[in-house]
């Protein structure tokens, strides 16, 4: 069942550029993709029992590193993707080693403080472009594939496939992590950390794994966005942005890192984009009302809906048959 769904969605995503002429639609899909990577990372971290309020920090680190290296050192944006991820991953590692021993709520505060430090650093130091940010970031150069010839990435239609690649790789890795024995260990740590320690599990090691993975791919997504949009401002990386990530992920639901992140982020970003066309202030009201509704009616996210419907139908059926 899952593989059928997966294949259908994958096909749909691959063929999307062929189905529309409007670059705005593709732009929105790309936005959804970036948000999905972040949301999946957030859910992965939640699996281990931690709440991170600083996802956008990794986005920012990835974006700025890649932008600066490609502009100041002439590095190819392709390498920039990897570099962005690496820098963010290292930051996640350092942060994690020091702070992941802290218990849940204080950790959330620390991730928020970290995100703010990152943002303030980027917006106050001139070498990072200050408040204005960085402009004229080089976009992806064309690559030559043997036997096929050069492929250029001038239009968003072609850049879309880069994002798809990034999304695919991050989704694969995070999904695999979640479903495997690693994910089992993650969940056991979040449910009873003391118990698993006395069974020989070293919680810090696994927390780091999740954290660094989420950080790495967040960085890659950030690097991508830098080269795609061509400009970078620190105002994109405020705490509100991190909270949006959290809300998107919560809407999708904790049942599945992959699908929850993908669904939640895509849905919310789609609505957000439409609302932005009307009035930017509607976005806050939208996110606010959504999270309230979700909290009251679907605390486990949209993915829990099928399960609940099944249960209801089952009990109704039993009543009818009795």
């Amino acid at each position, binding site marked *: 069942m899952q593989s059928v769904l997966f294949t259908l969605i994958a096909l749909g995503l691959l063929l999307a550029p062929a189905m529309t002429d409007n670059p705005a639609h593709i732009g929105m899909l790309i936005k959804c993709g970036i948000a999905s990577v972040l949301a999946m990372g957030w859910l992965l971290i939640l699996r281990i029992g931690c709440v991170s309020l600083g996802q956008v920090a990794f986005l920012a680190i990835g974006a700025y590193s890649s932008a600066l290296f490609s502009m100041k050192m002439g590095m190819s944006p392709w390498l920039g993707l990897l570099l962005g991820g690496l820098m963010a991953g290292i930051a996640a590692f350092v942060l994690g080693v020091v702070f992941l021993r802290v218990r849940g709520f204080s950790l959330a505060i620390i991730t928020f403080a970290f995100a703010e430090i990152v943002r303030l650093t980027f917006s106050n130091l001139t070498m990072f472009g200050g408040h204005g940010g960085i402009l004229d970031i080089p976009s992806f150069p064309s690559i030559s594939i043997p036997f096929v010839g050069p492929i250029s990435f001038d239009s968003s239609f072609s850049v879309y496939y880069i994002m798809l690649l990034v999304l695919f790789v991050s989704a694969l*890795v995070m999904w*695999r*992590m979640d479903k*495997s*024995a*690693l994910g*089992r*260990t993650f*969940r*056991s740590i979040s*449910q*009873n950390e*003391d*118990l*698993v*320690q*006395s*069974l*020989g*599990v*070293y*919680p810090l090691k696994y927390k780091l*794994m999740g954290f660094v993975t989420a950080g790495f791919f967040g960085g890659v997504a950030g690097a991508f966005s830098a080269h795609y949009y061509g400009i970078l401002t620190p105002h994109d990386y405020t705490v509100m942005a991190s909270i949006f990530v959290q809300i998107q992920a919560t809407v999708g639901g904790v049942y599945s890192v992959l699908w929850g992140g993908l669904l939640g982020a895509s849905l919310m970003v789609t609505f957000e984009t439409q609302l932005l066309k009307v009035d930017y202030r509607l976005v806050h009201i939208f996110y606010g009302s959504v999270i309230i509704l979700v909290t009251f009616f679907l605390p486990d996210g949209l993915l829990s809906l099928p399960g609940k419907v099944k249960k209801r139908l089952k009990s109704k059926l039993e009543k009818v048959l009795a």
Partner: protein
Amino acid sequence: MNILSVKKVTHRFKGLKALSDIDIDVREGEILGIIGPNGAGKTTLFNVISGFLKPTEGDIIFQGENITGLRPHRIARKGLVRSFQAATLLPLFPCVGNLLVAHHLYKEFGFFGAMFSTPSCAAREKEVMERSMAILRKLGIENYFMATSKDLPYGYQKMIGLSMALATDPQVLLLDEPVAGMNAPEIRVMSEEILRIRNELKKTVVLVEHNMRMVMGVCDRVVVIHHGVKIAEGTPEETQNDPQVIESYLGIEDEG
């Protein structure tokens, strides 16, 4: 042969002396009971031995090696595993899931193995699954292997908790109130299991308990702790008749 020694352990906590100068030697292959009125420091002692607390003074020697201050997972890896009083298992996991996690130490999967599902990792998973199902079969709840563990009757939860500790193949088991909240037949089953762990599996067991009958019936030796101080040690009969022990328990009753 002393497999585990607590040497002059003192633990101060916010000005209170939770443990004072405790000296306990555990002989290999014995079942040692630690008893004492509530709040006497027994759980603190367990926390210190298993690495969840670092004692203010003193050492813990396990199999000739000083393990004081080591992290709990390290100590577990060396063969000293403890169970917990409450929260003995992972409540939202299915029964079999609990046991799968417990086998982590027994057959640890590697990062790449798990991520790429290599043949060796898959083989490990299969073996661990078989062992877990076998344990559930022995407990008679094989058909409930996918049931959420918190929905199980309390006695079964504790048995699973014990099995989880056993799955790591430890040398010494520290059991914190293994029969708390159980009824008579459950206590009997648990006592038999503990005896079997010592007799058949040749493991050493140290347990903390309040249920005197169970302690007297199962333990080879008993240590009595009161107000963080060891006040008596010996066979169950000896300590039962020790005047200091009687006074410490009676004293509590008077105050109550």
